[in-house]
């Protein structure tokens, strides 16, 4: 039952990324909601669970994307895994730190995509970094920070209500 619920949630998240997020586009750039979910899940549930969710979501993203190779399965796995390490090693990080870390991970993921595209003879350096990777890193960082802030705030509210 739990497995079906997780499967359903993964499919819903992927559908969300490809359709509902489109109106949020600013100058052709939309946030990578999947990256945010993988990161936030990884920080709270640890490396293995984070990596696993990243792997499944990345695989699904690759299936419905027009990219030339399966790259997200690899990048999202490492984001989930790395987020798990961050969650264990950094004590009480604020939303600003999370925002910065999400931006950094998004930038690394973007640089990796550019590397793959350059290898395939399709990359445009430096315009891809300036017009896609950096704006997306800022967008992901800002949105990730806001989501983390809302989650942590609502958690505090819930705790204070019961104590």
């Amino acid at each position, binding site marked *: 039952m739990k497995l079906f619920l997780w499967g359903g949630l993964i*499919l819903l998240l992927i559908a969300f990324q490809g359709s509902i997020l489109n109106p949020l586009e600013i100058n052709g750039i939309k946030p990578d909601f999947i990256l945010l979910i993988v990161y936030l899940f990884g920080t709270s549930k640890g490396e293995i669970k984070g990596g696993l969710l990243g792997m499944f979501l990345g695989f699904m993203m690759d299936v419905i994307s027009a990219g030339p190779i399966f790259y997200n399965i690899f990048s999202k796995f490492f984001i989930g895994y790395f987020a798990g390490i961050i969650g264990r090693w950094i004590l009480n990080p604020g939303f600003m730190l999370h925002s910065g870390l999400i931006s950094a991970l998004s930038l690394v993921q973007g640089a990796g995509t550019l590397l793959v595209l350059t290898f395939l003879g*399709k990359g445009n350096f430096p315009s891809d970094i300036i017009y896609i990777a950096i704006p997306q890193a800022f967008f992901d960082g800002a949105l990730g920070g806001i989501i983390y802030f809302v989650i942590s705030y609502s958690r505090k509210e819930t705790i204070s209500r019961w104590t």
Partner: protein
Amino acid sequence: MIRFLSINKKLLIAFLLLIGVFVLLSPEIKENPRYYLFEKPFSSTVNLIQSGFFFIFDGISNTWNGYIYLINIKEENNRLIEENNRLKAESVVLQEKALAGDRLQQLLDIKDTLNISYNAAGIIAKDPSNWYSAIVINKGERDRLRPNLGVITAEGVVGRIVKTAASYSRVLLLTDRNSAVAGLIQRTGDEGIVAGMGGRTLQLNFIMIDSEVQNGDLVITSGTDGVFPPGIVIGTINKIESPKNALFHTIELIPGVDLSRVREVMVLKTPLLPEVEKLLKEEIE
């Protein structure tokens, strides 16, 4: 950290091997014009959910446009009446030209290349990544669509179908870095290849340096690629660079269609050339 890694080393290696297999196999999977068996259940379910989202949001949008947005309708109506009058006048001149063209065509015994049937389709999703430009449309093999069919709107070229399933198809947009269309400059008649750049602009390649190309020139399809019939708008020339000692101009185009706002498209059912059909069959087999 080291202790954790040593405990989970086997699990980590298993994950990495699984990922490695997928990454290595992916070019073959991605280039196939049909969805693989393992892709179908995932992509079908995601597209079904996205169709639901599209249905809901389209309904909301239609309600907004139909009832709440009525405030601007009078202004819009006056503008349309003016435009209609202007177009009526233009149409008389164009009809005369078309008749002259028909007469010349009969004289030259040229086949009517624009006699192509088409299917209207709605866009249900866009590519989840910012690095690639693709859309998913709600028509597929059931509507006799197949890879390499051209997709257009009234404003011009949108892209071409690259992958089909029973009830949906993936369309690679004109702006994608893997996209290319045979085009020609309408004013000068110079032919070239229009390629996507991954951003919002296009590049027109292989236009000789002695061509008298200008900013604002219209680029249309030449019809030589077998995907699009001739005469469909691709875009307008925006920037021209002519480096010294170079063979070709470097030309940037603005697409005729605002691809971020497209919601409905037309799929051109261009008949396949027998040679191309044979090659496609071989590729699928």
